[in-house]
């Protein structure tokens, strides 16, 4: 055992330990966050939380039914706009955009749009929707979130379409199918699980955003008309409740955080399941 061998062996062990510890820290962060949320929020998550409106300041109890529905409305609007636009952008990039300046510009813009700070997206949506309409609304919040969703959906759609083997496209073209028919009947169906997964992950990603909602949907302690009134949402509720000086509101914030994280986790797991099931089926 020479000195050099000893050095190599030691370095090997040191690096193995270092990477292992970092991997452990990464994974345990999720569990610490989850455990903390459950510890603080679980006691406040009850039936009332899902069915009742918030109680006036100082009164204990109440729920966030309006925020849960409001979040669903806002995310629903965002998906309604963001999914089709993002999807078709992804189809264009994958099927027609292999080269050419136009596709390059679009791809680059998608990356830029993805990198725009969410609060800036909120300001933009506020000017474009809130100001002309004269009111905060779930519609404006949905518009802001859809801007975040378009690049996510476009990127993932493009990625999964590019994974569809060329021979499958040629098989369809060789039968006399047009390019569009080939894309619609063969390429997209072959990638549909991946595309669905990307969309679900995109929805999960935007449903936790609070910053774009600050100037768009605002908040509401009551039920509201999503088209022309300020609308409550879970992320915004967490924001207001956590900043308040009341213990009961703090508990509500934890509960809202737990519910939001639970929904996002469920969406993630569902997406993962869809994807793995698809892969094993493709392998036969």
């Amino acid at each position, binding site marked *: 055992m020479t000195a050099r061998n000893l050095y190599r062996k030691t370095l090997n062990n040191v690096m193995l330990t270092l990477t292992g510890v970092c991997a452990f820290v990464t994974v345990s962060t999720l569990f610490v966050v989850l455990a903390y949320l459950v510890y603080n929020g679980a006691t406040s998550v009850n039936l009332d939380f899902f069915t009742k409106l918030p109680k006036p300041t100082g009164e204990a109890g109440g729920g966030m039914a309006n925020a849960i529905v409001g979040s669903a409305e806002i995310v629903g609007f965002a998906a309604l706009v963001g999914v089709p636009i993002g999807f078709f952008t992804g189809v264009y990039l994958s099927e027609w955009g292999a080269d050419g300046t136009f596709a390059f510009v679009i791809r680059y813009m998608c990356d830029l749009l993805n990198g725009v700070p969410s609060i800036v997206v909120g300001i933009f949506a506020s000017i474009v929707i809130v100001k002309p309409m004269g009111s905060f609304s779930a519609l404006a919040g949905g518009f802001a979130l859809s801007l975040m969703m378009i690049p996510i959906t476009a990127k993932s759609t493009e990625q999964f379409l590019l994974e569809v083997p060329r*021979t499958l496209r040629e*098989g*369809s073209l*060789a*039968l*006399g199918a*047009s390019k569009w028919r080939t894309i619609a009947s063969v390429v997209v169906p072959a990638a549909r699980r991946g595309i669905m997964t990307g969309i679900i992950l995109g929805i999960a990603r935007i449903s936790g955003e609070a910053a774009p909602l600050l100037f768009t949907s605002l908040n509401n302690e009551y039920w509201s008309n999503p088209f022309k009134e300020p609308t409550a949402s879970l992320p915004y509720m967490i924001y207001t409740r956590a900043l308040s000086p009341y213990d009961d509101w703090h508990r509500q914030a934890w509960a809202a955080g737990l519910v939001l994280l639970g929904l996002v986790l469920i969406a993630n797991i569902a997406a993962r399941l869809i994807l793995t099931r698809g892969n094993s089926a*493709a392998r036969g």
Partner: protein
Amino acid sequence: MNAPAKAKSKQSSDAMNTPGEAPVSEAPATAQAPVKMRASGVNFHYGSFRALYDISLDFPANKVTALIGPSGCGKSTFLRSLNRINETLRGTRIDGEITLDGEDVLKMDVTSLRRRVGMVFQRPNPFPKSIFENVAYGVRVNGLASRSELPEIVEKSLRRAALWDEVRDKLNESAHALSGGQQQRLCIARGLAVNPEVLLLDEPCSALDPIATAKIEDLLVAIKDQCTIVIVTHNMQQAARVADNTGFFLLGRLIEHDRTDVIFKNPAKRETEDYITGRFG
């Protein structure tokens, strides 16, 4: 060595069935039947790389023509020019003339060309759909039949591809559940469903075991009275077994083409003999 004999007897009976027209080519092999497809002076470029040099070759109707040659010799490129599937690749360029029943293929509407000239690929590429939908696909996209006629067309095509008995009870199951050989016969059935006049096969058996290969070879001999067949193959025994005519490609050039027995027993060119006797390639 039963198979070649079988193929040969089939060939001679076919020759009697098809009264020859006036000879239209310098190749003696093509004098026996009317020309279905003809390539003259075809050049092909991938970007700056020239893949084909001045290829002229006739495909007589209802015959099997094999294209042989070492890897990268351009035989697949040439085959893929016949239904213009190569033009879907970027940066490709073709010149020369290809005709189908005298019509200019390069100027024809590409979807109707591909309806008439079907293709089977190297690896089975069934669509991620049911067995039924795979076969019905070409009929649907070309609007060739009404919905009520589909089951009959699907059954007929699967029978022609010698697959019907194996899949009749599971038409609605995924095509991916079939074995490789079955998938390849499904792809042939899919191609036959639109009643192509020409069927191009690009090394259709290279991913299959010998039993599946034998089934496909039998199938080709059985369907050639209904369409003209062009097959690219690496396997010279396969060419000898199924093909009436054979063309030998080398480095982007067609070295020679003739009746299969002439190519294998008495080739005119030194390169052909070297390749066939296994001196290179």
